[in-house]
């Protein structure tokens, strides 16, 4: 009964059928990164009743994080971010299984984590992490929701690796050398990264629930100075070194 009350404003949506909330409750989502994207993404997935949420982050909470990483708070400074996130999520929803992965996963650990979940959210803050996450999701046919934000600019897209013809992250952005642009040097507008994290949660719920139209094969870009949105369609690249191996 409590469950019905808790999720009633979702269940009222005409896009939700009788089983949609059950699908969400039975689902397992892996969130990699408990920072600016992972904070709102995990809060909305917990509030929506995702059955198991694993949040992975090896960093500790720092005062400079609190401007945008809204899952943490003053009392958590110095605490591992995944541990802090788990505490906040449990305070939000004690009916679901919330797990913290408290160190930076090795490739083997990352593969185990990905294989054990239904949907993966890339909420990391660097390019180097994005390729192995994408490649392992592709190998295990797990839908991947990826987003990024620096300064006032953001991007989000979905790779639905359940489709064997899906494009991959390297099809969209081939892996070339080049320095990352990071919040620590360029700054980041807090509500922008929050918006993108919320959108990642929305894409995960749509994929799990099978409603709406996720941003599969579509890169959405936003400039928060004017909230101007632009999107672009993409498909598998014939030249992609990852996907070409399959042939």
């Amino acid at each position, binding site marked *: 009964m409590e469950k019905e009350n808790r999720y009633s404003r979702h269940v009222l949506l005409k896009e939700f059928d009788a089983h949609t909330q059950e699908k969400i409750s039975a689902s397992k989502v892996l969130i990699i990164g408990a920072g600016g994207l992972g904070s709102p993404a995990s809060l909305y997935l917990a509030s929506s009743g995702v059955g198991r949420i694993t949040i992975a982050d090896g960093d500790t909470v720092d005062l400079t994080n609190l401007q945008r990483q809204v899952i943490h708070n003053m009392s958590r400074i110095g605490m591992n971010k995944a541990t802090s996130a788990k505490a906040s999520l449990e305070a939000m929803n004690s009916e679901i299984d919330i797990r913290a992965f408290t160190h930076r996963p090795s490739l083997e650990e990352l593969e185990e984590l990905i294989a054990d979940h239904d949907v993966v959210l890339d909420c990391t803050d660097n390019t180097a992490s994005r390729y192995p996450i994408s490649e392992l999701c592709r190998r295990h046919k797990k839908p991947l929701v990826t987003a990024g934000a620096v300064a006032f600019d953001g991007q989000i897209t979905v790779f639905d690796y359940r489709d064997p013809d899906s494009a991959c992250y390297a099809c969209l*952005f081939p892996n070339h050398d080049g320095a990352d642009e990071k919040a620590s040097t360029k700054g980041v507008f807090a509500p922008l990264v929050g918006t993108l994290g919320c959108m990642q949660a929305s894409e995960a719920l749509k994929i799990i629930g099978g409603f709406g139209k996720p941003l599969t094969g579509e890169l959405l870009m936003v400039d928060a100075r004017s909230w101007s949105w632009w999107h672009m369609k993409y498909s598998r690249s014939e030249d992609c070194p990852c996907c070409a191996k399959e042939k």
Partner: protein
Amino acid sequence: MSVKVLYFASLKDKVLKGEDSLELPEDVTTVEDLINYLSENDKALKAAFEEMPRLRFAVNQEMAKESTKIKDGDEVAFFPPVTGG
């Protein structure tokens, strides 16, 4: 031919503009030609193309390659990956 060119994210900051409407000479027929043309005519863009190896491009809101043809009225967009979080 005239095309609209869009610049996104950090590229926009480097070239200090979000878009251009350009009249292109007849020998510019592909994305690669356009990159070369822009590099010759705009120092900030030349530097940006050199500094940003991960830059990607789209023609009429579809991912394009260097060899993709462009025609009168097209919209060509240049954008880098945004990876902060």
